[in-house]
């Protein structure tokens, strides 16, 4: 339990000014980018590994559950504190400690913002590839917890493919190194299984990531389609031709209108859907693939294909993609988002289902998603003041998740299970499968005090009862 004495002890470790516990100060820590909420007993802001270790050791002795928190942009409730728990916020551990140009690595603290790292290393001709749409705000520590994705993960893989090593702190305060500066380390791949464990194994306090050299050539273009069905066919044609672009993103008609109402991204207002395609690599590769992608777009029924002529043009196309979710605010005040993944050849079929579900539950659904990965993001838009609409949104989400699993897909491509989807886990995994996962968690956290109540179905909801617009509107 979080008592006054416990808060005092936390203050003795991190300094009284780096602990907050008054309800009004805690308000913003009650939620993340998802629909769930719960008030933590306190939030601490450590500045170094030793403080994190001492905070965890103290909480362990006192039986207080702990949740790590980066920037609170997560979309599955991963950073929501359980009743009687505390949050460790990594806001003050936000330093880029080292960039090693020769080995193309960076060592950073977990609170470093994804885009800050990327911008910084670009000065050295390198980049950090995973680029969640929340990259302006989300932290690398949070990216590790969720195994975050992003448009460019199509070609380069999600966070797990880019993490070399981590210093982590376990629930009893033990500090441990997983992985290291080498691509391969003997023993079980503890680094690999830690990434994506949603904070239930421990917290990362130092992270070493791989960087990639900047490509020689980048080409971005827009395929403009009469409807989403045709655009889905184009996605299958591109992947089916053995072309894996750097990014392949779908934006539907509703989203195009929303985007164009807040910024001119150059998307034609009357298009049924657009595909944003980016190719990267050696000049020769990009030139050859461009021709093939262009003909795949035309052959599958594109109405037009526009190629960004310069970096400013390219930037404009991407601004449209990245501001889409913010722009949904112009349609409705609340949203609820599904993160299902399906085999790429099923995209057209699944998008037809999305539109059926939209009609059936009388709810507006906009679609902006990572088509190349088969990672959908149907986004239900509504006003929670309308009676019954929140419940309909939840039912629609459930029907879509069930459908994704039914066609050979799964619940989440990049947002994580957290609180939001834990009760749906039995759609994908049976009790024995889940038990194997629990065994690993129990090895890392025998008392299960790191972010308890997440991932595994337990019938316990932190649901506040109403959906609301969250501050971090990114996907």
């Amino acid at each position, binding site marked *: 339990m979080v008592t006054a004495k416990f808060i005092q002890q936390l203050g003795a470790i991190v300094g009284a000014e780096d602990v907050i516990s008054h309800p009004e100060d805690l308000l913003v820590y009650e939620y993340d980018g998802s629909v769930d909420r719960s008030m933590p007993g306190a939030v601490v802001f450590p500045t170094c590994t030793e403080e994190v270790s001492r905070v965890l050791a103290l909480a362990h002795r006192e039986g207080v559950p702990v949740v790590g928190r980066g920037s609170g942009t997560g979309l599955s409730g991963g950073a929501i504190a359980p009743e009687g728990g505390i949050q460790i916020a990594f806001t003050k551990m936000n330093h880029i400690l080292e960039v090693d140009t020769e*080995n193309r690595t960076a060592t950073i603290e977990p609170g470093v913002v994804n885009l800050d790292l990327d911008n910084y290393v670009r000065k050295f001709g390198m980049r950090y590839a995973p680029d969640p749409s929340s990259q302006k705000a989300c932290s690398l520590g949070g990216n590790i917890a969720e195994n975050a994705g992003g448009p460019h993960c199509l070609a380069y893989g999600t966070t797990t493919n880019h993490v070399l090593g981590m210093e982590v702190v376990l629930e009893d305060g033990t500090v441990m190194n997983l992985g290291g*500066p080498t691509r391969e380390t003997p023993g*079980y791949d503890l680094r690999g299984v830690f990434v994506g464990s949603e904070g239930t194994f421990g917290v990362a306090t130092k992270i070493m990531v791989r960087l990639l050299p900047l490509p020689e050539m980048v080409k971005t273009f827009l395929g403009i389609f009469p409807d989403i069905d045709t655009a889905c066919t184009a996605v299958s044609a591109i992947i089916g031709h053995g072309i894996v672009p750097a990014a392949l993103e779908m934006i539907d008609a509703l989203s195009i209108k929303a985007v164009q109402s807040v910024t001119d991204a150059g998307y034609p207002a009357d298009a049924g859907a657009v595909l944003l395609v980016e190719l990267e690599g050696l000049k020769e590769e990009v030139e050859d693939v461009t021709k093939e992608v262009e003909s795949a777009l035309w052959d599958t029924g594109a109405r037009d294909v526009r190629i960004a002529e310069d970096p400013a043009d390219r930037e404009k196309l991407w601004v449209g993609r990245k501001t889409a979710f913010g722009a949904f605010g112009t349609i409705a005040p609340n949203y609820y988002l599904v993160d299902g993944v399906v085999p790429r050849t099923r995209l057209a079929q699944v998008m037809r289902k999305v539109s059926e579900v939209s009609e059936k539950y009388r709810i507006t659904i906009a679609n902006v998603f990572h088509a190349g990965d088969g990672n959908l993001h149907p986004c239900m838009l509504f006003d929670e003041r309308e009676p019954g609409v929140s419940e309909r949104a939840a039912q629609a989400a459930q029907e879509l998740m069930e459908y994704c699993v039914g066609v050979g897909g799964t619940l989440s491509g990049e947002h994580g299970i957290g609180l939001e989807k834990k009760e749906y886990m039995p759609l994908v995994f049976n009790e024995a499968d889940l038990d194997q996962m629990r065994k690993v968690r129990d090895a890392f956290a025998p008392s299960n005090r790191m972010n308890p109540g997440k991932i595994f179905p337990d019938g316990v909801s932190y649901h506040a009862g109403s959906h609301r617009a969250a501050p971090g509107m990114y996907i």
Partner: protein
Amino acid sequence: MTSTLPEKLASLLGNHGVVPANRLAEYSIDGLVPASVVQPTSREAIAEVLRWAAAEKLAVSPRGGGTQMSLGNTPSKLDLVMDLSKYHRLLDYQPADLTATVEAGITLEAFQRELAQGGNLASLEAPMADRATIGGILAANSSGPLRHSYGPARDWLIGISIVGPDGGETKAGGKVVKNVTGYDLNKLYTGSLGTLGVIVEATFKLAPFPTDSGALVAVFPSMQTAMDEARNLLAQIYSPQGVHIVNALTAEKLDLPFNVPTDGACVMAFCSGRSRAVQRRLEESATLLLERNASQVERLDEPSGAALLRRLTDLGWSAATTPQLSLKINVSPSLVPKAIAWHQNSGIDPPGILADAGFGSVRLFWWGEEALPISGVIEAIVRLRAIAQESGGSVVVEHCPLPAKAQVDVWGDTSVEVELMRRIKHAFDPLGTLNPGRFMGRL
């Protein structure tokens, strides 16, 4: 036991599923001959044998093609070898989705052959691809000369099923290319050497089949110059997908098209992908190497380039190149030029050297006819390990005389993580049925 082991197994699997007694020695591990070897052809049979073995407290060693059996510590106990090589179907292949699912016993070569028909490739490499199985490749975390660019197997595995020592089958991941539904146990099983469960099924994301490939071989007067030029080559925008350096002793084993002077070294570079890009990589790399004082640069078009790539992948594992002792040093790429000299003054013969300059590994081979002194071997391992660990690296013993193996952990180290690994092993295999003693910390 009421019946003998082979009798009981024959009743579970039928006679054709049990290897005859006169062939058991072929399945020995570090000189230990198993009491029985089974070759199940179904998941049910795998589960049943495991359930029964656990009840009888037998130790089971899963096996694929048996191509890397020298990996791992000597088993603390060996009763039954489960040879998965007869469990080898391609279960699902979706060329348009770039995914495929296989039974664990399919060989890498057979898998690639099937995939090529749909225009795809699994980005997996392993020694002896005609015998190495997918299950074995995952368990041993095998990789090859292109690992620097395409990543090891862990980056391509998207779904897995295992049968645990209690006979229960469980899965993780799925059939989609991007997935954060539940913990990523794909990673945990990859490289676990069959100590957590028997891998029965695996799903991979695939890559398009490269339309072109080729190789370059360049000779330099010394290891150090070769090293520097390899690193320089890797820093170029057109850098090849794999760049390796060998000394003269290793070059001899690779059957290169020319001689490398005794103190000299050779840089090998491999390119694959789309034709125009591959040609540019090869041309510009060749020009650079010549400008930088390579005494000779040869370009190997196909099939010679692919043949060299295969010889390099098999090096140290094929019958003709199996050494008495081989060590793999994992280090940051920038330390590779230093790591190639760390073995010096170890008191045992000069070894063959193979360095992967991009990925960050150095393999040392002692091929000599004369038996190495055991004390010298142990001292060399301990010394190298101390140096490597200081730089955040590690040393894995790939081949080693058995008496030395008894005295050093081939995986190295007993750091704090081993305790955590022990907890995982205990939770997954509480009776120690699967490959006991062979993993890190003799788990």
